[in-house]
């Protein structure tokens, strides 16, 4: 496995220029309520600690405030997303995220239609099914084929079903 520091440098993130000022952590809306400490993630990655297994990686709402304010111009959120990608490649993923991914594969939507929404649509005078993949089965087939082609279906499959 590539070391986190090298991985991020390869992705073009200049984490070595981080001066550990903590502007990121101080700006983080999640860090107020969760254990997410952005400054520490950057430091851990730089020291090649096991950041891929760090739960904090999944507490970032991707609000980009830290990235906007970083005095060194480090793309912190994009770097966190890059670390998540590497985690997923190594089979590390929260069960809820696997589930929502499987939803996109099977239904074409992370939040698919339900009976309650169909009732609301009809009350509003809208078509029963929206003009998305729900109404066009051939479009859903395209989505499935595309996600098969990119390897997403394989990537998201449970370990034991691979």
């Amino acid at each position, binding site marked *: 496995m590539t070391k986190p520091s090298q991985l991020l440098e390869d992705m073009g993130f200049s984490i070595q220029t981080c001066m550990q000022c903590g502007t990121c952590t101080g700006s983080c*809306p*999640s860090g*107020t*309520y*969760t254990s997410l400490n952005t400054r520490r993630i950057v430091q851990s990655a730089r020291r090649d600690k096991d950041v891929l297994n760090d739960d904090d990686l*999944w*507490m*970032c*709402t*991707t*609000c*980009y*405030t830290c*990235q*906007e304010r970083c005095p060194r111009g480090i793309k912190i*959120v*994009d770097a966190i*997303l890059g670390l*998540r*990608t590497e985690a*997923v490649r190594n089979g590390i*993923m*929260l069960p*809820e*995220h696997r589930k*929502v*991914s499987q939803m*996109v594969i099977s239904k*074409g*939507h*992370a*939040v*698919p*239609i*339900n009976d309650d*929404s169909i009732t*609301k*649509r009809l*009350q*509003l*005078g*809208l078509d029963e099914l*929206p*003009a*998305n*993949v729900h*109404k*066009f089965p051939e*479009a*859903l087939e*395209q*989505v499935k*084929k*595309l*996600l098969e*082609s*990119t*390897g997403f279906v394989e*990537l*998201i499959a449970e370990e034991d079903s691979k």
Partner: protein
Amino acid sequence: MKNLSIFLGCIVPNRYPGIEKATKLVLDKLGIDWSDLNGASCCPAPGVFRSFDKASWLALATRNIALSEAMDRDVLTVCNGCYGSLSDANHEMKNDPKLAKATNKHLAGIDMEFKGTSDVRHIVEFFYEELGVEGVRDKVTQPLDLKVAVHYGCHLIKPSKERGFGSVEKPTFFDELVEATGATSVDYADKMACCGAGGGVRSALLDKSLDMAEHKFKKITEAGADVIVNACPFCHLQLDYGQIEVKEKNGNEYAIPVLHYMQLLALAMGYSPEDIGLDMNFIKAGNILEAKV
């Protein structure tokens, strides 16, 4: 500028169809040429799927854009997340030939191709740029006497380098559009703070996600706002249904109605709350709107 296809995303058509209705009513009233984007899928969500696998995120997003290209229309999004995904994907596909080639290879398998002929717009940005604040004000027939807490949502303006709307610390364009309806935008502490839903946090860590939402509810209540107005259905869901979830979690009750900007504008153009599904929200707007509209 081309005519538009409406990219609805997941939450608008599948959970809050009132926003879809309001959007279509407003566009019709303004005489803007729009079409449904038949066969569209999840955008897919930027902070979630892009972080899981970028190639898959890009392929799916590009397919949605290519559907609009085939109709010779620009893509109009009504959601910050969809806007983030589709405008970023469009930008990368137009500017990175290697990436475009790899993505088109996947698309070729379903007989589609990205050509780079359409733009991706967000409805708030579109209204601000194409109609302007005065252009919107001219269309208001029913000025609204409401105190509004404007929630921009993160991905409308950030990352700023990609979005290019100026200040992310104290933007004003959305407030100006809200005030064009006759409403007053009230300032509140941590106005630019995240609703807490993005990045897969709501789906996997709901409890913490709601703490972030409740922080906003407290500050908005302190500021005496009548309603929250957003431009993102995922923020809308978090801020509306989130109030129910917070009450279940810790008993704290807030009762701040939540409107998407298209619903606010529809009211200001004379439509009723029922026309645009406001009664379908979890937090009912009834009393406040009856007294003010």
